[in-house]
C-alpha cells in the first residue's frame, strides 16, 4: 500500500475494525465523527479511552432534532497524543428518551448528565445525582427542548416595561429634560 493515511483516517479505520456497522466520517483536520447506536456508545468510549489513548473527556452535548423526532447526544473526547477531537454521536427517540449512564467512565459526565436530564428531560437509568441542578421549582416542560416557547412563557410570567414597543426617538426629550444640547455629530443619527 503506497498511500499514507492521515491520523484522522487511521482513527476511523481503527474504530471501524473494532466495531461492526459503525459509520465514521473524517470531517476535517482534527475532527472525526462516529455515528453509533445507543448501545454501542459506552463500549466505544471505553475502547477509545483504554486502547486508543483518548483519555480526556471534553464535552457531552444534546441537540434537539424536533423535525425528525430525535435527540442527538454528542460525546466529544480528545487524545493528547493524536490531538484529535472524536465525536461519538448517537440518536435517541424523542418520546421517553433514555440513555445509558456513563459517568463511571469519566466522572465529569455526571455533571453533563445532570444538566441534560434537567434541560432536555433525557433519563439516565441508574444515574445518581441530585435532581435539581440549575433550575429551581421548575414545573414546565424541560426548557431547552425546541418545542418549549420561551417568549410565550415570558409573556405569561413576567412583567414588561410599558412603552418598550413604541419606537419613538426619545433622545431629544431626554436632552430637553436634563437641559442638554444634542451635539451635532449625534443629530445625523436621529430617526426623524
Amino acid at each position: 500500500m503506497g498511500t499514507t493515511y492521515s491520523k484522522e483516517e487511521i482513527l476511523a479505520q481503527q474504530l471501524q475494525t473494532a466495531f461492526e456497522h459503525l459509520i465514521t466520517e473524517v470531517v476535517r483536520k482534527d475532527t472525526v465523527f462516529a455515528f453509533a447506536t445507543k448501545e454501542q456508545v459506552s463500549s466505544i468510549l471505553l475502547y477509545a479511552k483504554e486502547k486508543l489513548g483518548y483519555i480526556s473527556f471534553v464535552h457531552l452535548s444534546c441537540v434537539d432534532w424536533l423535525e425528525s423526532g430525535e435527540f442527538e447526544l454528542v460525546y466529544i473526547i480528545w487524545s493528547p497524543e493524536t490531538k484529535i477531537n472524536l465525536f461519538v454521536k448517537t440518536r435517541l427517540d424523542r418520546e421517553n428518551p433514555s440513555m445509558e449512564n456513563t459517568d463511571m467512565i469519566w466522572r465529569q459526565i455526571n455533571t453533563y448528565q445532570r444538566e441534560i436530564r434537567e434541560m432536555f428531560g433525557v433519563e439516565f437509568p441508574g444515574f445518581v445525582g441530585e435532581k435539581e441542578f440549575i433550575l429551581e421549582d421548575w414545573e414546565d416542560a424541560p426548557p431547552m427542548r425546541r418545542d418549549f416557547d420561551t417568549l410565550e412563557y415570558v409573556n405569561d410570567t413576567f412583567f414588561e416595561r410599558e412603552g418598550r414597543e413604541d419606537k419613538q426617538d426619545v433622545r431629544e426629550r431626554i436632552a430637553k429634560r436634563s437641559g442638554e444640547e444634542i451635539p451635532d455629530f449625534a443629530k445625523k443619527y436621529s430617526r426623524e
Partner: protein
Amino acid sequence: MYNDKNAQTIVDYIQNFTRKNSLFMLAYGTGCGAIELPATLTSRYDAERLGVRGAATPRQADLLLITGYLSTKTLKRVIRVYEQMQDPKYVIGFGSCTINGGMYWDSYNTIKLLDKYIPVDVYINGCMPRPESVISGFQELKRLIAAGKADGAKKYKENLEWYRENQKKVLKNWPLVEYNW
C-alpha cells in the same frame, strides 16, 4: 422621619447627612455587573472616598446593588437578603437588565422589571455601566437621601401585599418566612 425637604428638622438633616455619606454596600454580586465593582472600589475610581464601602452581611448593609439580570432562583435570595437588611435601606438597580430585561428580554429565567419585586431607588443604565456611571448613580442616591426622598423601604412596607403577590407569581414555591416589622 421621611418628611419632605421643607419640613426637615435639624435631626433629620444630620441623619440624612450621615446616611448619605456612609453607604455600606452589600457584597452580593447577583449578576455580571459585579465585575465593574472591583474597578469602582479601586484606585482609579475609588468609591471609598465617597463613603461607600463593602459590608459582609445583610445585617450590616444599607445598600443593595442588584448588579444586572436576576434569575428567579436569585430573586428568592435577593428578597430574603433585602428583608434582612435594617432600615433605612436602599436599592440600586444596576444595568439595563434590571430596567427592562435588557438583552434577556425573552429569557424564561430572568425577571424583566426589578421594581415590581423590590423597590428600587436609583437605576443605572448601560450594559454594563462604566464605573463613572456607577459613581454617578451613587451620587444620585445621595442626592435623594439628602432630600429625604429615598423611601423605597417605606414603600415596600406599605405595599407589602402587592409586592408579595408579584413575587409569588414568579416564585412558585414560597418557603420564606413572613416577616412582620
